[in-house]
Each structure stands twice: as C-alpha cells, then as structure tokens.
C-alpha cells in the first residue's frame, strides 16, 4: 500500500509523526509538497505594475519561483530525516488542492494536517484546501492536528432540547 503525506510549511511535522505512528511497516511512503502559483504571481503582478521599469530578468516573480523550489526541497529533506525510513519525495506545482487529490490516486491512505483557524474548534479548523482534499480524495484520509489534539473538555455543551 502507498501512503501519501501532504506536507505544508508550519504543520508538516505532525503529518510525518502520524505516518510513523500509523503507516504499516511495508507501506511505500510518499512525502508530497505542492507549490501554489499564487505567491510568485503576486510578485509578477507587482512588477508589471511598475510598467517595465527595469529589465525582464529583474522580475521578482521568477526569483520567488526559483527560491520556492529550493525551499520545498529543503522542507522534504527535513521531513525525510524526521521520518527515518525509506520514502519517495514528490514535488508538484499547480492548484494546491487539485494536485494533492491527483497525487492521491491509487494510494491507500492520504495523511494531512488541519490548515484552518484552530482557535475555534469546528468547521473553521479546516481551510479551503484541506476541505477540498478531504471531500475529493480518492482514498481514506487521516486528518491530524498540527499540535496535540484538544481533549474532550473543549467540546461545547449540547444545545438545549426544544420541546
């Protein structure tokens, strides 16, 4: 069976730990990082707003793209080291949530971390990207908390019965 761990800046250690705890020993582990097009595009747009001041090779969007590739590689290196077992590293770029779902095709398990507002428990603790992946992944999903899961005491009391 193939286990995909979708790693995102800031929350990836929880996913790696979940793979260590829950993936079978004989599973093939894939560490996945997806770079979205939007951050370089923001820089491209700002440069376009300068109306051609400076040469095209100065476009900060290109430099951001190159730096993004390097930082994804170093994130996957750190994750592989934390995992401590053989694994495959996969870097993709494109619409993040769609790339994740595509990468999960034929997999036995997709591991991902909550990416929403975790100060309020409930639907908002999932951001749009994780929400999409949970809804559309073609395999079982293991959804983990980036920090230790909150205990039962954090659940609000049940609503009063209506007569």
């Amino acid at each position, binding site marked *: 069976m193939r286990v995909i761990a979708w790693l995102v800046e800031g929350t990836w250690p929880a996913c790696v730990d979940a793979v260590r705890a829950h993936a079978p020993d004989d599973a093939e582990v894939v560490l996945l990082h997806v770079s979205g097009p939007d951050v370089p595009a923001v*820089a491209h747009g700002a440069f376009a707003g300068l109306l051609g001041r400076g040469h095209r090779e100065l476009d900060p969007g290109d430099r951001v793209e190159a730096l993004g590739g390097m930082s994804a590689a170093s994130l996957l290196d750190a994750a592989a080291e934390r995992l401590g077992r053989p694994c495959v590293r996969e870097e993709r770029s494109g619409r993040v949530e769609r790339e994740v779902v595509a990468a999960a095709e034929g997999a036995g398990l997709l591991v991902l971390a909550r990416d929403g507002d975790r100060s309020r428990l409930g639907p908002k603790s999932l951001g749009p990207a994780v929400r999409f992946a949970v809804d559309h992944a073609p395999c079982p999903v293991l959804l983990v908390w980036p920090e230790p899961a909150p205990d039962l005491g954090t659940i609000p009391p049940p609503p009063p019965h209506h007569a």
Partner: protein
Amino acid sequence: MAVPAAGIAVATGVISLDHARAEAERLGPVVGFLAAVLVLAHFCDVEGLFRACGAWTARWARGRPVRLLTAVFALASAITAALSLDATIVLLTPVVFATAARTGVRPKPHVYACTHLSNTASLLLPVSNLTNLLAFAASGLSFTRFAALMALPWLAAIAVEYLVFRRFFARDLTAAAPAGRDTGEAPALPLFALVTVGCTLAGFVVASAFGVDPAWVAAAGALVLAGRALLRRQAGPLTVLRAAAPGFLAFVLALGVVVRAVVDNGLADLLGHVVPDGTGLPALLGLAALAALLANLINNLPAVLVLLPLAAPTGPGAVLAVLLGVNIGPNLTYAGSLATLLWRRIVHQHEHDVDLGEFTRLGLLAVPSSLAVAVVALWGSLQVL
C-alpha cells in the same frame, strides 16, 4: 510604445512642439531624480543591504509568523520610503520570500505585505514613488514640508494595512514554524550603504533648507555607491547605466507628452467638471477617490499626469490628496491597473494565475479603509502644519 506615440502626436500637430518641449523640460529633472534613486537602490543591493535585512528579520522573528509580519511591515515601509517602491518590489520581495521559506513560515502574507506596502508606504518622501516626484515638482512644496505633511497619512495608512493583514491572513499566521529551523548566521553590517543612504536622506533636508534641488543630493548618493562599486570592480559602467533604466526614463518623458496631448485635446474640460474644488475634507476625499479610480483604470503614472494640472491650482493640499489616491489605489487591481492587466492578456503574459478573488478581496478591505484614514490624516496635518 509610448515613444512612437509621442512622436506621432507631435508630428500630426495634436500637440504643439512648444507644449511638447515644455513638458519634456518639466519632466527632465524628475526623470533624472528617478534615475539617481534607481542607481542608489541597485548598489545598496550590491553592497548586501537587502540580504542583511532578510537575515535580521529572520533572527528577530525566530520562526513566529506574526513577528515576521511585523518585521516585514517595518522593513518594507522604511525601504519604500527611503529607496522607492521599485526597490521594495524588485529587491526586497525575493529576500522576504526567502526569509519566510528558510524559517519555515508560510510566505504568502509576507509577500503580499511587500506588494501592498510598496504602494501604501510610498507616501512619505518625494523619492518614495515616481508619482511623488511628479507631484512634488508640481506642488511647489519644499522637501521637508512635503515629508512633514505626509508623515501622518503615511503612518495611518500603514497602521490600517497592518490591522487588515492580521485579520485577513489570520489562518496562515497561526501556522507556527517547527522549532529549530535555521535562522541564518549573523550578517555583516553593510555599513557603507547604510551611511550613504542616511547621508542622502539628511542631505535632502539640508538641500531643501538652502533651496537646492534635492535631485543633486540623490545624484551624489548614487555616484558614491556606484563609484565605490566601479573602483572595486563589482560593476562596470554598463551596469550603472542599466540600473538607471534608460528605456523607462524615455518612456516617462514620452508618456508625459502623450498625456499632455490628450489633456490639451478635451480631457481637461471633461475632467474639470468632475474634479472637486476646495480643500475641505469632503473635497479632499472626493479627489483622492477619483485619483484612486483613475489609477485603477489607466495605471497611476498616467493618472497622476492627468490630474496634476487640474489639482495644482487649488494648492498643495489638493495635490497631496491626488497622491494618496494614486499611490494607495493600485492595491485594488492585480498588476496595478486594468490597462496593465489587459496588456498582459494581449501579449500573453498571464500564464501565472494569481487567485484574483483573494487579491481583490484583500484590496477591497485594505484600499478604501487605508485611503479614507490617510485623507483624514492629511486634512488634519494641513490644519495643524
């Protein structure tokens, strides 16, 4: 594009040769000033100023996203004010992205902060934005008085942006980096660049007190940094020339002539009905809103060229209100204006798809609020100073 258009305008008599020459003479010193600031910023980068800034913010933020955002706000505001918005977009943005990525923080809010502040934080000094240089020449204000009047609007607009960013990117800002990531080694202090920029800024104040054109001070600062790089063989004369972006300088001159031709042939009468008169708060708000709208349609450079002749007779208050509109306004539209966006579609430079919905939602929150607060602050400054 603009250069042949200007040639046609003159050749066909749409604009008289005298008007074209007057416009070029008026813009000449402004363009020279801009060239000096571009060279200054380029050689600050060569001296390692921006790399050092990245390392300082990384060490100060220690992988905590909110601290990094605060540091990026302070840094981008200072760089934009002192070295112009070009420096923030071209030189600082990649450094900020690399800093966020290296410390394991999600880069999106910080890269957005650079692009927004390159506009919003470009209010303070005449050198911060080409639009300011144009308005500065038209307003008749001294360098010091310009900065004094714009200080409060600058601070107010940045503060509003900060609050909007903290709320808008709350999700990305809660994802703290795993501990123990590399924050980089202590950078060497680029003392020479810092001292040169500091002396140049002080020189602006002194020159203004003695009635000397601050463009000469900018040229001296640029000459010192470029000269040092030439002596140390870090750069050739060609690099200095390219840093001054001669193609763009020609574009600005030609654009001035083209806009003058359009203004002379009816636009002035048309807009004369719309441009509010007076320097009361409602008039300033209307002027800033009109300027922001125009900047989003045709880009802020032509917008300021169109509006300056109409606002200048009312006085410096009206000119500065136009400036608030054309500087803060472009945060609303991706690539700064619909005209640029259309042009990019035409020449097929739209392969990088930004999330336009997110970009625009952020702009709709940040632009009206920071613009309104900045105009009120300007109105207050005009009453007191």
